[in-house]
């Protein structure tokens, strides 16, 4: 491997972030050039490395403490190479798009500094050679996400969302940190390659700690990939600028949890994988249900992201001991393309409508914003799993996996979620882009400038074609599995139907059913007919099943109350009661004893005599 290029991939965005912070905080154009230039350099270097098929490790010593030696290294293998391309490729499109979307914002240099910092951190996760280094970047990703969600910090909603995201992540991260410490205390190393080798050589070295470690590491993924029950932060994170939502909260950072699970797949044993599969499946279902009744265009996409992340996590779990999680990474990759596309297109809509995000105030946008509409439609079709879009192939591998593992409950769940997905996505498309305009806003809409539309088109290409690029075979190589390539694109297209027809047809028909339902309900709708049909459950879904309220109440009941009680105890019982009490006892004793000092000679004489008597009695009586 070419160590120089690998370091360049990692350090170019870091350099840009530093340069912008130090020199360009008042010069937007310079800041944008540095940031976009850095990510393009990283992308180019990644491409070169990928073409060369470079693999290997390079490292410098980072911590050299007695008993704990940790390197700071970079690791290239099929997994990290492909992930590098995803991060830098999608990242490049989004950086360029940002230059149009954020133009004129007074905080633009700060924005680009944050974006570059994020890219650096994310690439650090991808390239890390050991768990501690990975954890450092893992947290750094959290901070850059915090800074970018809270970018418009003068809006209280944005500031609160940033804090919520950070703290929710932190809850998961401490499970992860405990997992790391557990791995270290049992196996004595943190290096990924050494760990993997050690476990392969002597699986029983693990013992009973295996499940615990697997689940603790999974805690980190639950936080970062917003799986149930820590899913609440992601929809709120949409308060950040839309390109940030596209890059961080759709394509890359939230996928880091899935990447982590695939990276540490060798740590996960059968019971842990079962938990992971069910967590993913439930998240997919829950998020798809919640998406049905959202009206904010970005929030619908956020819930669909949650749902797709649930698919990926479920795929990791379904891979089973002895299998490999290439399907999860495959879906991660195609999802990064089409979800970034969807968010950027949604951003173009929001931009055109002057920050209107309610789909019930849109309508008829297809004619006004043709490029946006067609690319958004491509993203939607990919998300719904319509052939030949990329999403069809990757989702099919997941359903096939469930079929092959004979996990019919999760297969049914996956198929059901596919139907829901098609329903809510076409609800969005039909309401926002077709039908009558539902407010004044769409009348004045104009297509975005090329700096924004070109990235849309660029992302539409892999959205359509990535299913034919053999990405799944690339990931399978990581786990030592070679799958035969289908010959010709037509053969490739029909291969899923021949290989596992139940999965392929099930997914496809479910999506079709969802589409038909959406078409019937929303083709001409000016207001949502679903609440009338469903009644109270629709309201529950709109209110997100009250998870946020539940957590707020829980936190208020436990943490805040506890904090207040402890503070009160500290103030009144310890400080006032015990400490002042002790002082008070001494003071009181002093006051009492003062009465003895009367200055009266007879009293003193009496006390002296009494004392002498007591003393005599004590010595003589014993």
């Amino acid at each position, binding site marked *: 491997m070419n160590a120089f290029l690998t370091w360049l991939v990692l350090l170019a965005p870091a350099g840009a972030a530093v340069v912008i912070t130090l020199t360009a905080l008042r010069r937007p154009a310079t800041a944008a050039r540095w940031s976009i230039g850095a990510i393009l350099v990283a992308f180019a270097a990644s491409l070169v490395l990928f073409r060369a098929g470079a693999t290997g490790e390079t490292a410098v*010593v*980072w*911590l*050299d*403490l*007695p*008993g*704990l030696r940790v390197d700071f290294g970079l690791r290239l293998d099929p997994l990290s190479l492909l992930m590098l391309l995803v991060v830098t490729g999608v990242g490049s499109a989004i950086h360029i798009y940002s230059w149009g979307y954020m133009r004129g914002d007074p905080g633009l240099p700060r924005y680009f500094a944050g974006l570059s910092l994020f890219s650096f951190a994310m690439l650090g996760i991808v390239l890390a050679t050991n768990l*501690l280094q990975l*954890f*450092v970047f*893992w*947290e*750094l990703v959290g*901070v850059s996400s915090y800074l970018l969600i*809270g970018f418009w*910090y*003068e809006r*209280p909603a944005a*500031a609160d969302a*940033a*804090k919520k995201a*950070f*703290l929710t992540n*932190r*809850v998961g991260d*401490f499970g992860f*940190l*405990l997992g790391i*410490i*557990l791995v*270290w*205390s049992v196996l004595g190393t943190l290096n990924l390659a050494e760990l993997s080798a050690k476990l392969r050589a002597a699986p029983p070295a693990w013992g009973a700690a295996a499940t615990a470690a697997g689940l603790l590491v999974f805690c980190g993924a639950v936080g970062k990939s917003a799986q149930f029950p820590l899913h609440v932060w992601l929809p709120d994170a949409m308060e950040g600028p839309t390109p940030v939502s596209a890059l961080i909260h759709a394509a890359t950072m939230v996928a880091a949890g899935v990447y982590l699970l695939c990276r540490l797949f060798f740590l996960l044993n059968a019971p842990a994988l079962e938990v992971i599969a069910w967590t993913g499946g439930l998240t997919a279902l829950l998020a798809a249900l919640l998406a049905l009744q959202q009206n904010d265009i970005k929030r619908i996409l956020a819930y669909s992201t949650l749902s797709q992340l649930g698919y990926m996590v479920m795929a990791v779990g379904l891979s089973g001991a002895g299998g490999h999680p290439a399907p999860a990474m495959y879906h991660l990759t195609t999802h990064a393309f089409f979800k970034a596309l969807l968010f950027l297109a949604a951003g173009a809509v929001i931009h055109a409508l002057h920050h209107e995000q309610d789909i019930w105030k849109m309508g008829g946008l297809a004619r006004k914003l043709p490029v946006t509409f067609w690319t958004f439609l491509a993203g939607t079709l990919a998300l719904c799993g319509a052939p030949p879009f990329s999403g069809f192939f990757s989702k099919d591998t997941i359903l096939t996996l469930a079929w092959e593992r004979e996990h019919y409950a999760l297969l049914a769940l996956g198929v059901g979620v596919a139907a829901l997905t098609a329903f809510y996505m076409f609800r969005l498309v039909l309401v926002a882009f077709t039908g009558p305009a539902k407010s004044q806003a769409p009348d004045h809409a104009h297509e975005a400038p090329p700096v924004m539309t070109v990235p849309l088109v660029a992302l539409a290409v892999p959205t359509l074609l990535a299913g034919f690029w053999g990405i799944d075979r690339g990931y399978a190589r990581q786990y030592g599995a070679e799958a035969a390539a289908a010959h010709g694109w037509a053969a490739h297209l029909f291969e899923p139907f021949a290989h596992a027809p139940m999965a392929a047809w099930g997914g496809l028909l479910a999506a079709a059913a969802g589409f038909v339902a959406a078409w019937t309900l929303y083709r001409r709708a000016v207001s949502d007919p679903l609440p009338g049909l469903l009644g109270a459950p629709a309201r529950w879904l709109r209110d997100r099943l009250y998870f946020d309220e539940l957590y707020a109440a829980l936190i208020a009941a436990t*943490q*805040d109350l*506890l*904090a*207040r009680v*402890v*503070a009160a105890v*500290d103030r009144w019982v*310890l*400080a006032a009661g*015990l*400490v002042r009490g002790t*002082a008070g006892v001494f003071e009181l004793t002093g006051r009492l004893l003062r009465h003895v000092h009367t200055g009266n000679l007879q009293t003193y004489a009496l006390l002296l005599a009494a004392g002498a008597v007591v003393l005599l009695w004590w010595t003589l009586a014993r």
Partner: protein
Amino acid sequence: MSPPGLPASFPWLSVLIFSPLAAAVVVAVLRRERAVRWWTLAATLAVAAAAVPVLVGFDPGTPAFQFVEDRPWIPPLGLRYTLGVDGLSLVLVLLTVGILPLCVLASWRYITTRVREFMIGLLVMETAMVGVFCALDFVLFFLFWEAMLIPMALLIGVWGGPRKVYAALKFFIYTMAGSVFLLAAIIALYRQAGTWDLRALMGRELPLAFQVWVFLAFFLSFAIKVPMVPFHTWLPAAHVEAPTAGSVILASVLLKMGTYGFLRLSLPITPDATRLLAPHLCWLSVAAIVYGGLTALAQSDLKKLVAYSSVGHMGFATLGIFTLTRAGIEGAVLQMINHGITTGALFICVGLLYERLHTRELAAAAGVGRQVPVFAGFFGVFALSSMAFPGTNSFIGEFLALAGAFQFSLPVALAAVPGVVLAAAYMLRMLQRVAYGGPQNPDHTGVGDLNLREVLTLAPLLGLVFWIGLQPGPLVRLFAASVGHLLEQTAAGAPPLAAAP
């Protein structure tokens, strides 16, 4: 041992200890405040520079005491003037002499009355603190230990806030009460072992019951200093009222006296009692971590918030110590240093804010960060460090302390984790309010950002945050051998006698 050009017997430690005192004498005769400030700054910097030869000449490969000076002091009583440093005391000496110039800088504008007396107080404190870390004779140790009290109480009581006298008195009586037990333990040890020499007392096999009594006396004295829950109530009062420099010294150095006492005295002198009682102390440390975090979450006064966070952070240090594992104790020592750097910096930050806004209320400070971006940047980094963010100094310390707890007992480690999440919660709450805050506050218009002096005060600490965070190896190697030796003395190789309750 000694750098070339000087005799090996050059009394480096005595120079370190007494040169601040000599500088204080000069301060007493200086007339102008400006001269007093510059002279004190120069003196503290010179002392810091004088520590460099000690660092260079120090051999980290051996756990033995180095730069030893040993002279008869009061022969009829068998008292000797014995000084020496090993890795543990060296890093704390470095912390002390390093933090003092920053204290002087932080007091530059903050202290306007009785400047001369204030600077004398700082310098006398320095003598006493360095003395504690270097003393190897028990009576000398106690002498320096008590000598810290008076200048500190004066710093709070004369230059403090509205309730300064109450806070100073509380601080004085509280710690004095602890010292009484220390004195009792010292006398008891002398009667039992017949020596004042710390080195001779270590490894002396004392009966278990006696050890337990001595350990408990030590514990009361040191637990008040650390402070461990429930002996911490003097801390918020003292911190809130103390001037910035007083808070910094208190947080950075004085709190370390307690943990240093545990490491220097409790563990090696009463090893059996330590092993017997360690599980209870671990749980008490966990209680401090969680308790400090929860209390900090409920505070609306910035200084109180940081003060209670200290309780939690020092809980990690005591937790690490009483896991009696290598990782735990190394983590504890790192945590002591890191807490000195980070919490000291946070107190300086709060002081800078106070100089500008004349309030420490979180609500009144909300949103000031927009006016003072440079300050907000520093504040943000120190807040991240305080929540043990990876890549900053505190992370490595807490990681090692937790790793030690893991090896010691799983329930203890699991119970300590909520404290780490709490740290993120209260620090983020503070940072968010101060840096971002709510709507524009009209009081904040015209608030100036940091000037060069203030940047210079914070910049060295910022450098240390990242240097230790990214490259802790050199620092840890300084005390690794001493920790190893300490573990042998405590015989922690044997499993703890009692299981966790």
